[in-house]
């Protein structure tokens, strides 16, 4: 139950951050973009509780349920957990850069410029966040499928 609750926090918090980030990208004014990207930071404690909870309660369950130490799906999930967090961190830094620029533009007349549009539409920056989401989805597949 605790492991699943942590998973809800991990996935749900990431989805909330993703939705707010998408709304920030589509916002017309830099002030709105900055405000929505600031809200992404509110979801971070939820994600962090989920990230650490899934690991701690997951390892506890591994022992409790007596799964073998060589269970490939658990090791694969652990690798994906590291990958998802690393990519999520990189994506977060990209969002921070966009937020700082949006806040500066908001204070200077609230008109978007090419630099902000470029950061918000940067395919590499956004691809990293999507890949983090895919890694999280793959963990969910492994946890339910238990191949």
């Amino acid at each position: 139950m605790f492991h699943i609750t942590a998973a809800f926090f991990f996935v749900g918090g990431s989805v909330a951050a993703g939705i707010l980030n998408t709304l920030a990208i589509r916002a017309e004014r830099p002030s709105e973009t900055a405000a929505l990207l600031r809200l992404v930071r509110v979801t971070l404690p939820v994600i962090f509780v989920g990230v650490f909870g899934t690991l701690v309660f997951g390892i506890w369950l591994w022992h409790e349920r007596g799964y073998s130490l060589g269970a490939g799906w658990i090791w694969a999930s652990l690798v994906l957990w590291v990958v998802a967090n690393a990519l999520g961190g990189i994506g977060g830094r990209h969002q921070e850069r966009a937020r700082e620029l949006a806040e500066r533009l908001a204070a200077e007349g609230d008109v978007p410029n090419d630099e902000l549009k470029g950061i918000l539409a940067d395919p590499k920056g956004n691809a990293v966040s999507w890949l983090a989401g895919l890694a999280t989805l793959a963990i969910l597949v492994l946890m339910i499928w238990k191949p």
Partner: protein
Amino acid sequence: MTLLAYSRPFWPLFLHVLGAMLLFGATLAAFVAAAAGYGRAAFRSLLLAVPFWILMLGAGTWLNSDADGVWNGQTWLQLGMNIAGPGVLALLVAIGTAYWWTRSGNVRAARICTGITGVYILLLAVAWLAMSGKWG
């Protein structure tokens, strides 16, 4: 993926859990936006929650029909079904008040929207705790 496609019990459970997690995420985004005073973002997030609710409920119904009534009468199932079914009224009222808020800028609409969205998050938490812990 081919193996996955042929392991029928996987799909309803996976889609049910995925739908529930996405629904929680969209509602959380709406709550965060509403609490911070961003009605349009709250309204859009709540609208996005609707297809996730359909996925969660549809896959849950599929899962239950596959179980051939084995779980009938269980407390955790009743709780989950009541929150997934009639509980959607809270989501619909939240969408309605968020729309009212974006159209009028009314402070009361903002407060009602934030409150109901918060209550809906709590209901979802009760549902996932009951279903994962098999209460009763």
